[in-house]
């Protein structure tokens, strides 16, 4: 990242590749692209952490709090089973929110970068 950043550009072969690299770096520097990356990570990073934590809470609770997880809620249906079912709901809901966000926010931003890329060439 530090010194390495400028070096490879100089070392790259003089012909097509150098201009090519500059072209891509240029696109990377555009506000639209930066905004897209920021918007995407602002959703994906917390969502990924959330689903990992929620998912591993199940095997961990099964092992660490066995009597609590075996508590029966309705008839012989216990907390462990209901927790497992809730994982399905969690996955579907998160997927729904991701797709909504992608359609509303990421796609228009990506389209802007694509247009700019088309003009640049």
């Amino acid at each position, binding site marked *: *990242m530090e010194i*390495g*950043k400028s*070096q*490879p*550009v100089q*070392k*790259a072969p003089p012909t097509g590749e150098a201009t*090519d*690299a500059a072209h*891509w*770096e240029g*696109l*990377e520097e555009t506000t639209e*692209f930066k905004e*897209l*990356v920021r918007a*995407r990570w602002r959703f*994906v990073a917390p*969502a*990924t952490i959330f*689903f*990992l934590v929620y*998912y*591993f809470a*199940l*095997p*961990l609770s*099964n*092992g*660490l709090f*066995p009597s609590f*997880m*075996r508590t029966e809620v*309705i*008839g*012989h*249906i*216990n907390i*462990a*089973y209901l927790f*497992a*079912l809730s*994982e*399905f709901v*969690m*996955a*579907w809901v*998160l*997927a*729904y929110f*991701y*797709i909504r966000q*992608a*359609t509303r926010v990421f*796609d228009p931003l*990506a389209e802007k*970068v*694509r247009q700019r*890329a088309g003009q640049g060439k």
Partner: protein
Amino acid sequence: MSITLTLFLIVVGITLVITAWAARRTRTTVQFWAAGRTIKGWQNGLAIAGDYMSAASFLGIAGLIAFNGYDGFMYSVGWLVAYLTVLFLIAEPMRNTGKYTMADVLSYRMSPVPVRSAAAFSTIAVSASYMMAQMIGAGSLIKILLPDLDKNLSPYFNWALFGTKLDPSIALVGALMMIYVIAGGMVATTWVQIVKAVLLMGGAILLSLLVLLYFNFNFLAFFDKIYSVKDKATGLPFTSPGILYPYGKATVWGIDKALVENVSLGLALILGTAGLPHILMRFFTVPNAKAARSSVAWAMGLIGSFYVMTTFLGFGAAALIGKANICAKVVTGFKCAPGLKPNTNMSMPRLADFLGTNFFGATGGEFLLAFIAAVAFATILAVVAGLTLAASGAFSHDFYVNVVRTHLFHGTVSEREQVLVARITAALVGLLSIWLAAKTGATANVAALVAGVAFVIAASANLPAILFTLFWKRFNTWGAVASLVGGTVVTIWLVAVGPGWTLPAVAHPAFPLQNVGIVAIPVGFLLAIVGTYVGELAKADRLAEVKFHEIDVRAQTGVGAEPTPVPA
């Protein structure tokens, strides 16, 4: 038995006809590998579901639940949640940067010769171990349909291949499947996967409804019955966690071993999917990133619904038949024929037999058994085709065409030569998986096997390479090769010295866990990082960082993505 076998052959025959029809529509390379990139999102969603739900899901999970209760259901949970990893991090960037195989994406930034060779190695390892489980599943079906086949064929199988005697049923059905796939069924798997996904969902819905009908749609009565099934060793009811891996029995590194096994399994389940070459290939069949995204959504809906139904399928088999009576041949009263060992992989067909007989009489039982066995067989065949495509793609496209011929001999390769190499690869991988299946044993659970080997290799070798290629600027060829080769080797080694899945279990294995993911996956990521820094010190690969800017923009936006060809 003749009705069962006849109907089984009819349903399988229909599937084969569709395959042949689809195969004739395939002309060019892009059609061969990526179905012309014209597959719609929902179609691809069905195809992903078809590719993903193998014998492991259809036969394996039901078996794990039928034999171990609640713990088996953890496989269902993990294999759905896994798709969030795919959706958030993998599907769209893959479509935006890839062409035919996983290695296409890696070699964007990396030096193509070492990376393609390493990716071919890990892809073949994943495919062969995945296929090994499919072979065991197919063998289990044949053992039910033709219970005397093993005995009748045994004189011809009285020899050993590298010290292992082949299992007659597995060897026969495995060889037939490979011949079919290699002879032409290998192409155009998308449509086969779609047909098969529909069949599989249909079969699961039918059996689930019949299980519920047995309990008059009284959910609580169903759970009462499951609760009444108790595990002999622990005394726990089947609704309770802790039967597959009993808690409080042993410790590993000072922690309860059962807890470590479950977390380790979970890691492989949710991280492995994102590194499965035959699933990643599916994202190259759609027109753009948006379609890749919607196909994951469709797949999640279908796969999730199926996995919820494993409650009825698995617990249903436990409650209605009981694990002691799940084997290749049953006598009156659904008791295991004397001298036969129970086999977890036979839970679904046995459940079908029981429910059919219960509701529609003996013929109904034969009918339903034939139908479910045929669906399972179609499932396995379709997955074997997908895996063969991935493995032969990795070898012929990545290694042979791009490494051996283009870089080492600087020649051009005719399509005929490429297809020939693909077929030879497929035959060898098929043979390897039949041998591995015999070595592992026909009664090992196929879901546990897939999760225990193929998913761990995918998560420890492929996933770090893909993620870092897409998102880490400093990542380079050394890091990629280190994780692809290192992750694969470490996983195979840990599994080989571990307790394994063959009963009786090894008494004091060199590695204590069945699920090796908790060690292998971090090692894979670590190798990728260490390899990268070593490569930097060696000043080996400056282009990787320059190229990062390109892959960064392409992955996020789809600039310059492989286009959708105009339909002919």
